[in-house]
């Protein structure tokens, strides 16, 4: 299955059938219990912002043309945390919805607020 890292406009995560753990970085085993053949699931893209920054000093000339851009860590409702780009007004604790937008030659996750956090 493809996800945004391989050109599809979707975010995948993994689930362990044995211990019910979920995580984001793909592997062919469960990092919690070692169980084999984790299940691939498609994320809803909904979550709560855990941390957010604005990158002003980009790492390369190509990315400098796109700066400033905002990067967030989002706690997704399925129980995993993912790094995304974020809209300008997104703040910690906001509830957000992820979409997939162009960034240079890539399509990347980008989140937008749908409810202000407490």
């Amino acid at each position: 299955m493809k996800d945004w890292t391989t050109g599809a406009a979707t975010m995948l995560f993994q689930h362990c059938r044995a211990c019910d753990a979920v995580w984001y970085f793909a592997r062919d085993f469960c990092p919690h219990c070692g169980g084999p053949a984790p299940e691939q699931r498609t994320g809803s893209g909904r979550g709560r912002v855990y941390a957010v920054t604005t990158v002003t000093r980009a790492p390369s000339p190509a990315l400098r043309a796109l700066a400033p851009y905002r990067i967030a860590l989002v706690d997704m409702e399925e129980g995993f945390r993912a790094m995304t780009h974020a809209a300008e007004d997104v703040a910690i604790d906001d509830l957000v919805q992820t979409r997939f937008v162009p960034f240079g030659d890539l399509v990347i996750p980008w989140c937008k607020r749908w409810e202000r956090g407490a």
Partner: protein
Amino acid sequence: MLVALRHAKWCLTLPGNRLPYCILRAADPAGEGRELSWITGVGLTPFGRLEGRTTLDLMSDAASAALADAGLRRDEVDGLITGYSTTLPHLMLSTVFAEHFGLTPHYAHGVQLGGATGFATVMLAHELVAAGRLRHVLVVAGENRMTGQSRDAAIQTLAQVGHPRYEVPLGPTIPAYYGLVASRYMHETGTTAEDLAELAVLMRSHAALHPGAQFREPISVADVLGSKPIAAPLRILDCCPVSDGGAAVVVSRDRTGEAGVRIIGCGQAHTHQHVSAAASLASFGTATAAARAGLGTRVALADLRYAAIYDSFTITLAILLEELSLAPRGGAGALARDGHFGRDGAMPLNTHGGLLSYGQCGVGGAMAHLVETQLQMTGRAGPRQVRDASLALLHGDGGVLSSHVTLLLEQAR
């Protein structure tokens, strides 16, 4: 008798109780317990723009100084531990250096643990010496990180500590990873940008008295808050620079001269690699590593007199100080403002100016903290000398507060 006392040390260990620590010293007056090692020599180059000096040049400069300080010849060094260099990536940096410098060690090892490497190499040297395997271990690092590559190359190389598939494509930098950390830590603790700025101001004021420091011009909190934004909330004066430089220490089984500084505890903790995979950005492995080194058991927090804490960013320093209980949660900046961490304060901190102002050449960056600590503990810090550095806590981190190393050093009578 010695064995009995050493067992007693563990039996009597209680948090906050100084007795076990006294017994350790009593049982081991000459280090025959082999739980100890001595830092018999130190060497440090200036940090900053050292045009034309290569990784091997800078490592050699620091190693020569450390061997001279320890009073050792090359053929007396039986162990060699190096870090890595981004400008000299090599499968075998330790033996590349050994050949260049003229060493034929019994043991050689290059360690790679990001910013934690400096103290991890020293911990490894200590363990090998304490185990009786080696007599004199040269620990050396150096890199022309500033002039040996373009600024973009340095920034891109460092950003690769991010996850290659799930993080790096989003265009983060090391400051961005720490900007994420800072946003969360400030949200949970009430730490402000002004609080963080106090730590940058403090490091700069300390560097003013070190002729080798990269940045010696005084700065104010307003200067930090008005400096160029890099990765919010971090501004350029919240970030350590990229520098050229080298640092080395010799870790020995026995004293080689008057210097009486010994390592009495080491610990590590590794909780994650990538910022996305950290369980929390408000609690890290810092205190776990310190406890494994013996802080709170063999060594009481209240007995500490000097602190050498990794300061890649102001937020790093704030978090590590607070995680180590050297400051209350959210209170590191206020303590710095009150002079607590100054040369004449209750807990002098990074009196050479730290990474933030002495400079950051990679692995040698943390080792500069150790060199300064040894100079303080041997009364050789000149105008920076503190009144009492008899018991020191050193702590470094690598990655995104992912890997932690604590060292505890004691001044021998």
